[in-house]
């Protein structure tokens, strides 16, 4: 009997510990960010100055940088990943070719982000720089200054887009496979073509699930650190154009935390982390909630 009780106790303690960890993590972030939030108040989110030399900290440049790169990446990758999901979830169901593509996509999703970043740095940056060289005279005639850095917002969005294709594609594929076969067959029995079935049966049914998949990918893009840090240029100002450099919330933490000297600098970085944590958690929860609701329906 005693062993039984001990065993139950160990299991319960395990479950408790996991919850306690998350609780303590949240409290640690709040506690670490407190000095900065107290010093700058809500202005922390609106101020555009981030200057470790004068100890002035405002997170707006990083909020803007994060949102622009993530949404641009989403926009760039969406047509590609949805096409991939439709191909694997509808056109090519089963068969070795489909299985091969599926496992390739899953494996590529496992490639570490630092490698995506390095590839972006060595392969994409020169390409973007060439593009910027060509665009420079065009930009000048419109009064816009394009400097051929190669690194910057556009390059980071491209790398992020490539990184989230496998994520969106595999979630959207799973959602498409949840569409009941009898609905689709009903469509075909009326003589609908495949395109018509996709447009008027599959997409309406799977819409919310696909949206959830997009949200989850957005969550990943927002928190992505290394790949962005390597190609965004790391300047603490609000990016002025697609070709300009910038910083995201994750990349500024990666760049500065180990070298932060004053306690307010370091507390401000923790505050940026807190904001990042809150944003990604809300987005992830919205995504998982929609998917759970949809799987229950199906």
């Amino acid at each position: 009997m005693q062993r039984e009780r001990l065993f139950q106790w160990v299991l319960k303690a395990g479950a408790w510990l996991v919850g306690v960890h998350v609780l303590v993590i949240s409290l640690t972030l709040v506690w670490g960010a407190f000095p900065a939030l107290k010093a700058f108040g809500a202005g922390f989110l609106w101020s555009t100055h981030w200057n470790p030399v004068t100890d002035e900290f405002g997170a707006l440049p990083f909020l803007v940088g994060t949102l622009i790169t993530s949404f641009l990446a989403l926009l760039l990758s969406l047509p590609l990943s949805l096409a991939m999901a439709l191909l694997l979830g509808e056109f090519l169901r089963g068969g070795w070719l489909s299985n091969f593509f599926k496992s390739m996509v899953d494996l590529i999703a496992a490639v570490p982000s630092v490698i995506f970043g390095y590839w972006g740095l060595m392969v994409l940056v020169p390409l973007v720089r060439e593009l910027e060289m060509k665009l420079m005279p065009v930009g000048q005639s419109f009064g816009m200054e394009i400097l051929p850095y190669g690194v910057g917002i556009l390059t980071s969005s491209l790398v992020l887009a490539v990184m989230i294709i496998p994520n969106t594609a595999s979630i959207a594929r799973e959602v498409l496979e949840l569409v009941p076969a009898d609905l689709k067959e009903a469509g075909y029995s009326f003589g609908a073509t495949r395109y018509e079935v996709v447009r008027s049966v599959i997409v309406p049914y799977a819409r919310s699930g696909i949206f959830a998949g997009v949200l989850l990918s957005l969550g990943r893009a927002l928190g992505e650190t290394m790949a962005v840090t390597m190609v965004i240029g790391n300047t603490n100002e609000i990016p002025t154009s697609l070709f300009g450099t910038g910083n995201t919330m994750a990349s500024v933490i990666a760049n500065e935390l180990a070298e932060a000297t004053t306690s307010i600098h370091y507390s401000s970085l923790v505050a940026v982390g807190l904001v990042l944590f809150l944003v990604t958690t809300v987005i992830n929860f919205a995504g998982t909630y929609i998917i759970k609701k949809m799987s229950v329906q199906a």
Partner: protein
Amino acid sequence: MREPSIQRRLLVNGLFRFAICGLAAAALVPLFLILADVFRKGSGVLSWDFLTSLPKATGESGGGIANAIVGTLMLIGIASLLAVPLGIAAGVYLSEVRKSRLAYFTRLAVDILQGMPSVVIGIIAYLWLVRSMGRFTALSGGMALALMMLPLVVRGTEEVLKLVPAHLKEASLALGVPHYRTVLRVIIPCGLPGIISAVLLGVSRIAGETAPLLFTAFGNRFLEFSPLKPVGSLPLTIFTYAMSPYEDLQAQAWGASVVLILLVLVTNIIARIVITRWKIQF
């Protein structure tokens, strides 16, 4: 409203199929290109010497990544030691007690942890261990990685144990075997391949993590076996060499990338094989 003619509908259908195939192919191109580039540029650097020697002083040619390989293995070891027992205990709890308030909150916590950006986990390890000990350590890096691995182990264990047929458990209980022995001797052995696969997937997720290591394990150019000292790691080596201006270091970063990709993909593939072979039994 006039119905579109059948030719027109078939044409639209054909165009749609063409567009889907074209876009999907376009999505695959960069993905394959990355793998191809890494292996093309990295395989030339690989040699026994590259894997077993330490980095040379800046400017000298040659040198290897032995410190990074040892460091990565050490970090994975520490993370697994911390995350696996806790994760399995919590996973068994969730599969045994499916509906309780504790189970609800634990699942919530696992969801939050799973979605947490790795750099935020790095901040936590930095605040908990680096600040309090006053130096960068392998232990703090391992703890950050353990936090990233934990949700995968909990979820994997829970899902797999839920799949174990109820009649096995009932048969054992009917024979008068106590509950704890039933779990330890019947349920866990049945789900063991699934648990192993979850652990391997966790390892493959953390092996390439860089962001939390920047301010925890920090990196080290020398071989270091103590968990209380900074250690190097493959992803950190790739990052620092990639950002360096020296061409031979950049070439070595490609070599380290090949080693890291192989490590990640091989654990990932083994995890998948283990789980598919096991599924056939039921």
